[in-house]
């Protein structure tokens, strides 16, 4: 049984449909990546799975239980945590407060001090910035704060929406190194990433999303040989 699965998801914004019959699954311990062009529906899929958007049809199965339509905070208590697109920090709260709020759920609260120690060890720059408002951080620091906040919730499965967007190459490498470290600590990852070469190199399996539908899936080694994937996402023309 997979840790997390989506089965035939249809999601809408008002009357506008964004996802059609999307299915995927993630096993415990895996890193799975979702790739697709801008507007393909990657963020919509993560929001649906994390409980910010209720699907109109289909099931979201966590630990064998259908959780579609349950509010996000309940899923956090079950160990499913989203690190959203564009970070979504609280700009007028301090870095420390942002991190501490990550441990709000009943399950994570008793571990707060220990989690904070771990996060600060992983991102030492956050310790220096602890008393600063999150809105005053640089883009890279904000991203680390967002990842740190997600880790404070003690996730079993972490959903990441473009954690390296807009970062300089050195910071991109740092973020990916952090993701490896997080996986090594036993956390399952579902990663949406524009930087497809990096994502395919890190992940075990990938799903390709096009116009709200899953069009291809397979192990990353296989997909990175697929001519259409190479042309569209890796910028390598096939002969």
């Amino acid at each position, binding site marked *: 049984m997979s840790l997390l699965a989506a089965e035939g998801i249809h999601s809408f914004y008002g009357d506008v449909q964004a996802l059609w019959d999307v299915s995927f699954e993630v096993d415990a311990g895996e890193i799975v990546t979702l790739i697709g062009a801008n507007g393909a529906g990657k963020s919509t899929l993560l929001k649906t799975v994390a409980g910010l958007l209720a699907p109109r049809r289909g099931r979201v199965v966590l630990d064998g239980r259908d959780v579609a339509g349950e509010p996000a905070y309940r899923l956090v208590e079950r160990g499913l*945590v989203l690190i959203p697109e564009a970070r979504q920090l609280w700009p007028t709260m301090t870095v420390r407060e942002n991190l501490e709020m990550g441990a709000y759920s009943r399950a994570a609260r008793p571990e707060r001090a220990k989690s904070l120690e771990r996060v600060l060890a992983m991102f030492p720059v956050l310790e220096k910035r602890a008393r600063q408002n999150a809105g005053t951080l640089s883009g890279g620091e904000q991203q680390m704060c967002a990842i740190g906040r997600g880790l404070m919730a003690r996730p079993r499965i972490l959903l990441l929406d473009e954690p390296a967007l807009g970062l300089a190459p050195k910071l991109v490498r740092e973020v990916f190194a952090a993701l490896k470290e997080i996986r090594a600590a036993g956390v399952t990852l579902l990663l949406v990433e524009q930087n497809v070469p990096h994502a395919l190199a890190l992940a075990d399996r990938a799903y390709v999303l096009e116009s709200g539908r899953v069009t291809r899936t397979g192990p990353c080694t296989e997909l990175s040989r697929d001519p259409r994937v190479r042309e569209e996402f890796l910028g390598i023309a096939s002969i």
Partner: protein
Amino acid sequence: MSKILGVLADSLLAGGLYATMAYGLAVIYGVMRIINLAHAGFLMLGAYATLFLFTRFHIDPFVSLAVVLPAFFLIGVALYLAVVRRLPRSGATPSMESLLLLFGLWLVLQNLAYAIWGGDTQSILTGYTMKSISFGGVRVGVPLVLVFAASAMSLLVLTLFLKRTYVGKAIRAVTANRDAALISGVNADRISATAFGLGTAFAAMAGTLMSTLYAFTPDFGRSFLLKAFCIIVLGGMESAAGVALGAFVLALLENVMGAYTPIPTTFQDAISFSLLVIVLVLLPQGLPRLFTRISRPAHTR
């Protein structure tokens, strides 16, 4: 010179009361993006509750807060659970349904007060109602000083609550970014219930405090609702300090107009309304944003 001091003192004292009154509106708007048009109704009921405790049990108005605050907190929570949570979720702006519902509730509360107490003007006279004391040559009424002390204390406790406790931080988090709060494990529904209770309690507290200064009828509170709008537009909704700043600015403007211009005090509402319009046009994000804009260059590296 002493006239200036007098104006400043009056503004400061009135500002504390205004801040208490406006915070109730601000916290509900911040957490739920709902404008509580029934705010004035709870303010008025707070005054009547204090009158009831005073005439029936001879409880001092300031002591009555110990009963009024928790009672109205529970009333607010119950109201949220029974009615307000069933409203369709509004996005960035309050929905028509919420405005109609809460306006209707205000009318119900007013008529409830008419039914119970009638339309006569009521007032609370205590031993210190007419007393005054002087600070360095400036004479101020004892009730006004007590009202300020109670307001300042409540805002201080509130600030500590928002800064130090999990629930307080969750209120700030939902206000600043609801989705971010949800994915951090905050039960936004429970926080909304808490905020509605808190907002209702603060409205009632303002009513209690005002009952020691002014006479009132079931229509009491209408002009204060307008002032409260003006204050939260000025001061923003994210912190008690912002609300306090907005409250002081409004009180200062009213007192300066009263002391240095021939504009009669009956025009006070026109002042707050004009200020509201001017601020919306010139400073659509309120005073705190002006400060962050000025101080921002110091932070960026």
